[in-house]
């Protein structure tokens, strides 16, 4: 793995060598040995006029080098808060990390002060936002928006920075990049803007890319193109990706592993295969059943009935109890522990708990 890091570093020097393909990159996808990011028991709350919103209530997961982890779940389950916490973008003082850690290559990001965190932001970890129409500053030329991160973090001349930016625009598929550098965001279409946002995220060659619903605001055809771009970038650079989405179609396309979130918790995590074909949590099953399929008619679609619990006063037991067709007495009272289904597959549900299983037998 050291070798790969060297390749990344090497790329940092010359503008021409941007995102060249290290030989091992293709293989790395299968290796997944090195943990890049480790989120442990994260609790995040927001103080609001209505009280305290417990947005994250003990989120844990690992991210391996070179993989794409998809985080899925209904709106409001805490996907964006997870991303923002990793990125150090929780709005203070309303938002607060109450517990837990975000270990990036062994370093706890939640313990860093702001100026140290700024050396991670955009350098080691980059973020891609949902709406490309609002993510770019309307009053600055895209050339400046591309190069400013690089110029902040590395000692490069304007000329070098521009050269690298132009190369990157080419990589993400913007025609006439040299001309385009001088233009403003309103002169680009939505899809083009998202490509620019991706280029901005890549400019310092980060090791982790967090994309928060990067295709939700785009047309279906453009969505597919952007997803392909992600795959291409990962293949070239071996970057790890956290992809947040509520679109299981997107997940099916590019994820290696999937974490399913519900009411501020990760309730199931596993490889794509495991989660898609042998889902263990009733919520995951419901989610998969509600995906429109080509072979089913629209009426046969089964969305999960009910709504997620109120995060001002989340239930002590399993938060899915009120909507769960298999809910038991114990579900309402005690939160189920995490049960390992396989080395890679884990679920928080009483149905899978050894003790409950005994009961049924």
């Amino acid at each position, binding site marked *: 793995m050291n070798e790969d890091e060297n390749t990344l570093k090497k790329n940092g020097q010359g503008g021409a060598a941007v995102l060249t393909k290290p030989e091992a990159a293709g293989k790395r996808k299968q290796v997944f040995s090195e943990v890049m990011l480790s989120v442990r028991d994260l609790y995040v709350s927001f103080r609001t006029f209505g009280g305290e919103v417990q947005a994250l209530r003990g989120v844990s997961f690992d991210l391996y080098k070179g993989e794409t982890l998809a985080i899925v779940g209904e709106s409001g389950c805490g996907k964006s808060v997870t991303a923002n916490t990793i990125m150090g973008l929780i709005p203070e003082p309303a938002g607060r990390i109450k517990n837990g850690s975000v270990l990036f290559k062994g370093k706890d990001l939640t313990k860093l002060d702001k100026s140290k965190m700024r050396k991670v932001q955009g350098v080691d970890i980059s*973020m891609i*936002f949902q709406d490309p129409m609002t993510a770019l*500053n*309307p*009053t*600055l030329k895209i050339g400046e928006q591309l190069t400013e991160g690089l110029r902040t973090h590395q000692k490069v001349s304007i000329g070098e920075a521009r050269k690298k930016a132009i190369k990157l625009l080419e990589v993400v598929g913007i025609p006439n990049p040299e001309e385009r550098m001088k233009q403003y965001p309103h002169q680009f279409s939505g899809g083009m803007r998202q490509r620019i946002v991706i280029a901005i995220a890549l400019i310092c060659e980060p090791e982790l890319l967090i994309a928060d619903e990067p295709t939700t605001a785009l047309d279906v055809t453009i969505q597919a193109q952007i997803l392909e771009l992600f795959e291409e970038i990962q293949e070239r650079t071996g970057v790890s990706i956290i992809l947040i989405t509520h679109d299981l179609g997107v997940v099916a396309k590019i994820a290696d592993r999937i974490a399913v979130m519900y009411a501020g918790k990760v309730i199931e995590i596993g490889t794509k295969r495991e989660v898609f074909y042998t889902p263990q949590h009733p919520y995951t099953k419901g989610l998969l059943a509600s995906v429109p399929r080509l072979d089913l008619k629209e009426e046969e679609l089964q969305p999960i009935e009910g709504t997620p619990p109120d995060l001002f006063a989340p239930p002590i037991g399993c938060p899915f109890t009120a909507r769960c067709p298999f809910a038991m007495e114990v579900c309402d009272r005690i939160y189920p522990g995490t049960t390992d289904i396989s080395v890679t597959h884990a679920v928080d549900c009483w149905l899978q708990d050894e003790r409950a299983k005994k009961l049924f037998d």
Partner: protein
Amino acid sequence: MAIYIVKRFFMMIATILIIATLTFFLMHSVPGSPFDEERTSNPTIQANLEKFYKLDQPTHVQYFDYLKSIATFDFGPSIKKPNETVNTLLARGFPISFELGMVTILVAVISGITLGTLAALRHNGIIDYSAMAFAVIGISVPNFVLATVLIQQFAVNWNLLPPATWSSRMHMILPTLALATGPTAIIARLTRSSMLEVLTQDYIKMARAKGLSPVRIVLRHALRNALMPVVTIMGTMLAGILTGTFVIEKIFAIPGMGKYFVESINNRDYPVIMGSTVFYSAFLVFMLFLVDIVYGFIDPRIKLHRKEGDA
């Protein structure tokens, strides 16, 4: 760009023409004449005077004479000040009023934007609350009241600053303060609210995600966007300050255009009224034009010209 400027130029001419016309007919519809106060005047002298100033002519003839005077920038002699022409009055008074107005605008823009930005950055903090308390007072206290209070305190009670006239830098402080406080407060409030709004935008979050310094984020990313509403109100604010100078000049005995203007209205000094009104409106219309140009520079989405194709 060139086409835009030419278009705007003709619109400016049209605007000035409309203002001139309105002024002319409003003025003539107000009862009284420049010679009302001259008790001793006998009918013959009065008739001769009216003839000299062409007041005996039919209204439409006077109107066209007046338009001609505008076109040639020669507004004719003053009726009440026999040795002066409107042009000499303007040449003497306007630079002083202009100075007062410009210093005021400068002070208001700089302190208003600074105050508003700090308040937004320290949202709900002590700076925010004090700045907004100041703004409420600044907006609600009329400048002539503030002027008297300032004179009373700084000049009379504490003897720190000169109470009146316009003869040195020190003399400029109180009138500028009196005139600038209201606009400062308005700009501060507007900057604050628009800054608060801008700071929640995705592109600011994105700038933070790039690891940029807070200073760069505020100055380069937020401020420019936050200032757009401020630029929009600059036009009306300029007009307000311009008319405000008249009042303040009167209070501080500043020999600007305000004094002549007020006098001319009281005396029905027609050429001075019309000349200064047209001059001031031309000035204002030109300033509005400048504001639009500035706006185009700040916001690249405003197209002053049709050129680029969307991709």
